[in-house]
């Protein structure tokens, strides 16, 4: 029983981390209709900035805040210099251009920080496991990720549902022409949304840096997961992306945790040990394919909500 609880927490934490990354992606995608493959690069930059600033300042929190600001500025600069010229273009043009940006960022990081990657050590108060219920210990830092991500989710919800900017964002996600009709400064709104998306990606990057690594190309594998999530959730929907991220996090974790044992009960040992890893690798893609076949617009399409 404890095992299930702990695995659920693992899944929740992983899902929330993915949510931070995917939320920015779905906003940019939903509102500007812009496919940004370089979102993973912003995530990487967030982690590199954090590792650098934490080392400079000697403080985890201060370094993280500085890194957040730096990613925000980088996102705005990127939008201003290059990406705003790609709005309204074909998705494929955007894919090609932002693919180019991935190549650029990877090599730029390698040039500046070297190929070895960086470490982002945690302050000691975050390295101890916490007893959450008697007998179940959970890493403090992972708990912190859960708390921070939930806070961000709540904040995003408030901004999107309760503010004027949020109203525009929602309007934009369900009907793009409408923002133009409202006569507001679209360019500024887009720049802001892009900056927000970049900051969220940077936050995801720096939050995961102590658990994983700070490394070139770290954004690419996780970017695909983020795309899977926004597609499952329905593009442009914050609610959808939140549900889908947790769903994917939990399914992925539970699949890896319990699928092999389950299969071993059904299949022979040899067959199970070949099939189980392959199947749990495929699980998320399989899930996405099934969902899209049944609901071609994702679980929570933004346009209808």
């Amino acid at each position: 029983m404890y095992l299930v609880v702990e695995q659920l927490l693992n899944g929740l934490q992983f899902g929330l981390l993915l949510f931070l990354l995917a939320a920015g992606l779905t906003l940019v995608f939903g509102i500007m209709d812009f496919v940004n493959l370089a979102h993973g690069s912003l995530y990487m930059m967030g982690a590199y900035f954090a590792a650098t600033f934490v080392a400079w300042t000697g403080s985890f929190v201060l370094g993280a805040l500085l890194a957040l600001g730096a990613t925000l500025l980088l996102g705005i600069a990127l939008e201003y210099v290059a990406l705003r010229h790609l709005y309204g273009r074909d998705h494929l043009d955007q894919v090609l251009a932002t693919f180019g940006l991935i190549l650029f960022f990877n090599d730029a990081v390698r040039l500046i920080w070297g190929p070895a990657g960086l470490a982002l050590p945690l302050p000691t108060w975050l390295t101890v496991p916490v007893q959450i219920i008697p007998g179940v210990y959970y890493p403090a830092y992972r708990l912190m990720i859960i708390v921070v991500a939930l806070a961000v989710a709540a904040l995003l919800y408030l901004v999107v549902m309760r503010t004027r900017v949020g109203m525009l964002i929602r309007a934009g996600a369900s009907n793009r022409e409408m923002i133009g009709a409202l006569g507001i400064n679209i360019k500024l709104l887009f720049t802001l949304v892009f900056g927000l998306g970049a900051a969220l990606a940077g936050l995801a990057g720096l939050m995961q840096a102590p658990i994983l690594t700070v490394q070139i190309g770290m954004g690419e594998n996780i970017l695909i997961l983020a795309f899977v999530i926004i597609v499952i959730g329905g593009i442009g929907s914050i609610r959808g992306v939140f549900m889908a991220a947790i769903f994917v996090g939990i399914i992925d974790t539970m699949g890896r945790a319990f699928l092999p044992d389950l299969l071993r009960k059904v299949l022979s040992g040899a067959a199970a040990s070949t099939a189980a890893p392959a199947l749990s690798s495929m699980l998320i893609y399989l899930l996405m394919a099934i969902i899209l076949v049944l609901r071609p617009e994702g679980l929570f399409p933004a346009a209808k909500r």
Partner: protein
Amino acid sequence: MKKAFWLAGAMALALAQPAMAADSVKIGFVSTFSGPTAVIGNDMRNSFELALDHLGRKIDGKPVEVIYEDDQQKPDVGKQKTEKLVQSDKVDFIVGYIWSNVLLASLKTAVDSKTFLISANAGPSQLAGELCSPYVFSTSWQNDQTPAAMGLYMNQKGVKSVFLIGPNYAAGKDMLAGVKSTFKGEVVGEEYTVWPSQLDFSAELTKARNSKAESIFVFYPGAAGVQFLNQYAQAGIKAQIPLYTAFTIDELSLPLQKDNAIGIPGAQEWVNDLPNAENKKFVEDYRKKYPGLRPTYYGAQAYDAAQLINSAVVAVKGDLTKKDAMKAEMEKANFKSLRGPFKYGNNHIPIQNFYLQDVVKDADGQLSLKTVATIVKDDQDKFHGKCSMK
């Protein structure tokens, strides 16, 4: 339109590198120099360059020319680079290859053209068995050997049960199979993680803790090793269940793993403090030549490859057409390996010792790897019987 012609002309020129006069020793070096794993390629290149420095940049009086090619960690690109080296540069030796799949894709090109290929890292079982070739040598190991040594050490420690975790790809499976081949205790669980995309090992760690195993064995090379140790320590399992590793902690990952790596044993065929004169010189000069960096086993293997080439060329007095004589000389392993005792089996895979290494703070207060004991002497891979050496 004119521009297109100029461009085409420039491309043709760039591709049409003229073959150089044959009075130098030409060596092609295929490794990964871009992307996150470039750090390994760089270390191999650094060590190879250092070996050439030590040889006076000459082999048997002939100047040495090395052409480095980036395989991008993709098999088909590695194959293309190998073809370029063989066909366009007409090299005498090809060295390098970090990845098994890149090596396997490139092997045929080298063998068909009768160009000597020296694997300075990749050691898939096929290379030791059915794919062995007179033209192919290894200065590393066969994949199973290192974890098998770890299994032996765990027996010596009296470990009764183990939980195995590794990435779900060929080398990962080889590694876990390697431990199982020698470990005498009970294997209570075996988990494969998605490679290379899985980033979070919490599910596996949770299972390991709940399995009540006495120990955990993992194989996670490169960045994944950093991630795993981070999560292992943060989950508090480090205080509960000891970890045994192969290829998870090295001088490249250590600066990122930091204190998380202290006290975690690993098996390796080379450690930086091995007490022989050549090795001391190698490590000292490496740290002098590349300030801030420390050599790794990848580098040591590349260094040995340069020495192996040198021995062969010297033996034929620089006549690079005498391939049989060079092969015969290389089979004798007539050079001083950085790892000490080193000889070749019938399949051109080294027969060598495996050492237990531990992480300690050295004199400068920096973390470094230290030889603790010799786990196994003169170990030979278990696939050599499948090699017919045609």
